[in-house]
């Protein structure tokens, strides 16, 4: 519908003799609803579109975002941006982009059940059924939405990628209050594809399960042991650990300091490829090509073909996440990690779907030889410093383990660890790989992108809980 404006923008960039130019037209068709404490708070739809334009001139980088679809406005804004780039040139970093294969491709993630074929009434009914199972919770917030994202990407090098990726999203907050004590759980779900994923999530059962876990913990949980013990964490906790302490510090733009002002840097240096970061059973990948995933794409927002990135191989640092700018800095090829939140943001180095590869153990086997320990199925609060070295995860649904058996719930076990010690203390990896979802925040201005955070259960030896 708007392609002629993107074509025009590219033509105008060429006319202005930029060294390199790219145009990314994005359209989003969204629909969503929020149910709060059983009441439909709001619902709505949205159709947005806009163009993001990036160019290199005298090796300085300029970016334009515009959602005004007329050719004069596009021309004026490009002219204004070129003027600003020229003005800043004396202070500018000499940006280089890696040489990459030029692709002309079209791809699409399919909706087996199209969002538009599901009546809003059915979606409301689903959330109300979900809510009716957990009425005793004092705070019940459910948000269900869909987004069909279409992109039309062109470069002055001849690249042309056309894509359509639909996504289904669900977010909840549950707050319980029992005998003057409260507890809360937040989590989100996202898959690329259609409404079939919403059906698969089985929200009424899922939320009831979460409610019961929080209630049990509020009723019966006791403080965790104070001495050093063994800890098994479930896939949800593994996922966040992998995302925060492997995915982020492996982003090459952090390593080179480009995001230092806000998102921070990395404890990893570019010379550390090959260094040992964890036990040899630790293998971490980031894979945008994973079908139905939250972070799904086949070509990144610089037109580079996506592939699985092996971040940690047998415990050793294997490769970083790159866009064309950081790849050029290391004289290598990009591995297709450039992503932008929407047309109005520049593509920067991002994770897609980061997960620990599964091992051979069942969860029972991970637990069976533990004399005294804690099993942490999921978590609430977490954070990590901006070099991705020192992190904290507060367990939510967690249990004491005695003589290989799961016993009574424990109250908020806190793992406060450093990254190398965490990955070196893992002595067994489960085979129960799960993918969870997060909205990964990075950049200035801030950009949030959907990502899978995954892995199986893992066993961490000899750790003191906070």
């Amino acid at each position: 519908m708007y392609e002629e404006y993107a074509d025009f923008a590219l033509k105008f960039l060429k006319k202005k003799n930029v060294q390199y130019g790219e145009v990314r037209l994005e359209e989003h068709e969204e629909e969503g609803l929020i149910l709060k404490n059983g009441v439909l708070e709001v619902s709505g739809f949205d159709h947005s579109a806009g163009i993001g334009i990036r160019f290199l001139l005298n090796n300085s980088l300029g970016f334009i975002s515009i959602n005004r679809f007329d050719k004069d406005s596009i021309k004026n804004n490009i002219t204004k941006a070129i003027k600003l780039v020229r003005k800043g040139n004396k202070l500018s970093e000499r940006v280089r982009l890696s040489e990459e294969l030029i692709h002309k491709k079209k791809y699409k993630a399919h909706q087996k059940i199209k969002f538009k074929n599901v009546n809003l009434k059915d979606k409301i009914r689903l959330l109300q059924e979900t809510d009716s199972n957990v009425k005793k919770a004092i705070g019940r917030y459910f948000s269900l939405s869909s987004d069909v994202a279409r992109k039309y990407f062109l470069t002055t090098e001849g690249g042309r990628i056309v894509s359509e990726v639909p996504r289904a999203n669900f977010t909840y907050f549950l707050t319980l209050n029992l005998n003057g004590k409260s507890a809360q759980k937040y989590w989100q779900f996202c898959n690329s594809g259609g409404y079939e994923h919403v059906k698969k999530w089985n929200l009424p059962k899922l939320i009831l399960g979460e409610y019961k876990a929080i209630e049990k913990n509020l009723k019966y949980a006791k403080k965790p042991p104070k001495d050093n013990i063994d800890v098994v964490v479930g896939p949800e906790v593994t996922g966040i650990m992998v995302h925060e302490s492997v995915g982020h510090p492996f982003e090459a733009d952090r390593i080179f300091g480009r995001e230092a002002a806000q998102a921070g840097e990395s404890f990893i240096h570019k010379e550390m490829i090959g260094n040992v970061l964890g036990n040899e059973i630790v293998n971490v990948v980031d894979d945008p090509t994973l079908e139905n995933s939250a972070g799904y794409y086949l070509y990144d927002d610089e037109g580079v073909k996506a592939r699985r990135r092996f971040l940690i191989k047998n415990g050793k640092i294997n490769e970083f996440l790159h866009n064309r700018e950081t790849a050029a800095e290391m004289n290598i090829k990009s591995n297709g990690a450039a992503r932008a939140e929407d047309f109005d943001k520049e593509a920067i180095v991002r994770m897609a779907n980061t997960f620990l590869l599964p091992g051979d153990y069942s969860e029972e086997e991970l637990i069976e030889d533990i004399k005294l320990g804690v099993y942490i199925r999921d978590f609430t609060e977490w954070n990590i410093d901006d070099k991705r070295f020192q992190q904290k995860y507060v367990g939510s649904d967690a249990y004491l383990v005695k003589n290989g058996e799961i016993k009574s719930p424990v109250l908020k076990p806190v793992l406060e660890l450093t990254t190398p010690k965490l990955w070196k203390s893992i002595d067994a990896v489960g085979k129960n790989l799960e993918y969870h979802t997060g909205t990964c925040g990075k950049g200035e201005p801030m950009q949030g992108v959907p990502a899978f955070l995954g892995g199986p259960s893992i066993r961490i030896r000899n750790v003191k809980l906070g």
Partner: protein
Amino acid sequence: METLEYLMKKLKHGKIDDAVLTFSVNHSRQIKFADNKIVKTGVEELRNIGIFIVKDKKILTTSCHNLIGGAGLSNIGDGFNELNRKNMDRLVKRIFEFLKSVQPKKDYYGINEKKFNYKENKDGYDPKSINMDDVDYAEKGINAALKEGVKRTNGILEVHDIKSTVLTSKDITFSEKRSELYFSIRSFVEKDESGHMNALSTSLRKFDVEDAGKTSGEIARDSRNPVKGNKGSYEVILGPMAISPILDVIGESSSIFSVEAGLSFFANKKNKSIGSKKITIFDDGTLPGGVNSVKADCEGVATKKNVLIEKGVFKQYLHNTSTARKYKTESTGNAGLISPSPWNIVVEKGDFNLAEMIKNIRSGIYVTNVWYTRFANYRAGDFSTIPRDGTFLIKNGKIVGSLKNIRISENILRMLQGVDAVENKARYLRSWEARTPVLAPHILVKNCRITTPTL
């Protein structure tokens, strides 16, 4: 305006209860720098019509970001053509079709009908910012930091020129023009030796990038050779950057929406003592020079200064007209038609300067910035946050060294109870984790829990 009026007329034909249309145009520029060099410059022109409709208490929101073909929003103010009309008609048809499936929100009580005599926000707009020399400003900020002996600076300069018009179904209409000038600079001597400061202003005259650069450079310079901190209970001074994410959450938790959703530690706390008598916090939509200051909220209620916490007592929740009617009170001028939200969070100044605060501490930590503030439980207020940049150990009234690898693991209400001193001057800023701007002094909190890694 013609587009909004046409759209409103069409919506009114559909026998709606209420409608609010908001048209905004944002012209922005951006300079991002890393390692003292510009790594990107940006130009932005974004237009949007926000649409809020209620029919038979059924609420729908949508927006109209763009209309095809040289028409639509591009022509607002310059005429209105047939193509606009067709697109608007299609949108209105879809709105009424969609509304058929929506359920009513029984506790919805309407939008504002009262006409206010708005007080113009004179300090809110500076036309000089349109042609300011962005590169020169960024360079001045960077140089001010480098003069303090730092090696690297990273950050961003943003200039926003925002125009908006609101039209409601109660025939209330008004326009605003706002400028927002933002500069954020983080300075490094070595990897663990850094300082960060922001500048935020509506006017070029008060946009002090050099002060932000200098302060960030000073903090970095003073944070040399940090050592690992020890866990324990400390007297902690939180600087304006460090307190800003906490104030942001205090603002959000004051919204009645957060209270109802179970996401507020102020639930059931109205008129109750929740903190030390030394702390008073406002939300102020009229703050002179505030980048979020506006003459009216998005349903046309005049904004005002609302006390949230007065000498440790939580005083009121933030309301729009509908939520105020539900709770039999007055709107605080904070619509947010779905969720009332704060404008500028202001901490009332205290009696001490920073040096006096440090002098009175036997065992404490001065935290200049924090990062990654996350809650285990918004209802209870349990959270942790990570000090970053200059973090200083205080012993017997003096700064004796620089720290790293510590975490504040606390509860908001407990911290508010622990406020022991408030600085007699404040800094206006917003930060990465505090999207609501704050006017914040240094604040001294007693018995603050510091944790460290156990593995």
